[in-house]
């Protein structure tokens, strides 16, 4: 299985009939079991790209191709949203089995699968809680479990930890790295946080400010599993510096932009 993001461009037409270019000729592949991170300054169209890949938005040109897919009911993608997007009327368990219900998986199997992912993300004991009873970090664990339980070919994550406080965010990064190693799935992770991108990714796609285009794709040659003490190491910081070099000027320009 391989996902090809094939020359995606996206224009928005505003009310005056003017065209805004959000994405310009985005082209890269995601291999099986690969963790790809897309990083860019705010307003670079990162989320637009993710929505196009998830099938929640149409592109103006180009397409997303899943190559070599098994011919069964496996969904191509599942999304972990920044604002969790948990169903408030469903308990943790019921949220996690949502996709399985839609697939027509029987109740016992739903439960078995849910238990596996509840254990993986560390939600034991919270099964019967409602989302409003959980902290941000726990909510995002539910969202990750819900997406993984649906067994997608590609897991899409749209700045999943940016609504969390800094400490929780760090812990969740370590957790996610471990979860990725456990699941052996392809992940596409969107963030504006360079440290996070380098820590998590096999490759980092660096986008420019609007219109978002690829500045570089950086291969992160750091050992797996990624350890917490990695973030103090020279080679890690070198990658961070390299990407910051690309983004710094872009971010400065974005700062001056009039909304």
């Amino acid at each position, binding site marked *: 299985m391989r996902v090809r993001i094939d020359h995606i461009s996206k224009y928005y037409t505003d009310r005056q009939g003017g065209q805004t270019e959000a994405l310009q000729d985005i082209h890269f592949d995601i291999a099986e079991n690969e963790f790809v991170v897309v990083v860019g300054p705010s307003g670079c169209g990162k989320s637009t790209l993710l929505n196009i890949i998830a*099938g*929640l938005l149409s592109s103006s040109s180009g397409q997303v191709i899943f190559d070599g897919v098994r011919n069964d009911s496996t969904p191509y993608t*599942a999304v972990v949203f920044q604002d969790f997007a948990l169903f408030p*009327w469903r308990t943790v368990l019921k949220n996690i089995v949502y996709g399985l219900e839609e697939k027509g998986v029987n109740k016992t199997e739903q439960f078995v699968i849910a238990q596996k992912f509840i254990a993986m993300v560390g939600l034991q004991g919270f099964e019967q809680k*409602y989302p409003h009873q959980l902290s941000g970090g726990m909510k995002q664990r539910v969202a990750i479990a819900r997406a993984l339980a649906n067994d997608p070919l590609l897991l899409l994550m749209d700045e999943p930890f940016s609504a969390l406080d800094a400490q929780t965010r760090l812990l969740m990064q370590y957790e996610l790295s471990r979860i990725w190693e456990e699941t052996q799935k392809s992940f596409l992770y969107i963030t504006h946080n360079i440290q996070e991108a380098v820590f998590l990714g096999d490759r980092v796609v660096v986008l420019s400010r609007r219109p978002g285009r690829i500045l570089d794709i950086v291969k992160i040659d750091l050992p797996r599993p990624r350890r917490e003490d990695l973030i103090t190491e020279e080679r890690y910081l070198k990658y961070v510096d390299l990407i910051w070099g690309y983004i710094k000027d872009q971010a400065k320009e974005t700062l001056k932009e009039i909304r």
Partner: protein
Amino acid sequence: MKTSTELTKMEKAIVQDKTYFLQVKAHPWLSLTSFIIILCLWEIVSRVMWIPPLFLPAPSEILLEGWGMLKNGLIFKHVFASLSRILLGFSIACIMGMLIGILIGFFSIPEAIGNPLIAATFPIPKIAILPLLILWLGIGEPPKVAVIALGVFFPMVINVYTGVKNVDPLLIKAALSLGSNRTRVIRKVILPGILPMVFAGMKLGIGIALLLVVAAEMVAADAGIGFMILTAADLMQTKKLMVGLVILSLLGIFFNWLFQKMEKIFIPWKQ
């Protein structure tokens, strides 16, 4: 300008909480005692004949009258007649309001057709339609039920419509990305998402239903609380009339309590 010596004199200033008056204070006994005091005053005013009992009978007299009607079963006939009209009209309105509200909230073509129709008919006082309904449906039960249904329908449909519009689009996206189709989105996201608004509509609607049932029963009926009040007034039976008003008040309180309980059961995810 203050000199530095003046400033040093004022060195001890205690910061006051400026939000003090905003804090909600609980007055657990005040509600009950004030209610009782008002009742007592009323009792006294009637007893000493400051106001003739024909205009304002004492609360104890009203209670006695109500007890008598309860014993001879007269009260049940009227309450039953009104309640069955309310329940029938109210249920029809709730079901129709939800169906149409979801339809015009979720689909653009029904929205384009339905919105101006609702905007045009909503402002008409429903009592004004009653003569027309009697003309169409005769003087039996149907026009009474219909006028209640019409009155409850509007707050219901408007609430449901607003509810659908306010369902978080992110939740719809999440459902779609997890494999739901359009009808499943309506069932599993829109329907639970609008429940709080449905209950708000029901609470508004029951008040309107009580109003309209009384109005309809005053026009043409042989039973019902509205009929009872009107005939009591014709015969100068002020006590009986007051019993009718008390029943209406109790019905309102009962329905409010009922809907609050139902809300707790149907919306367990709300704190």
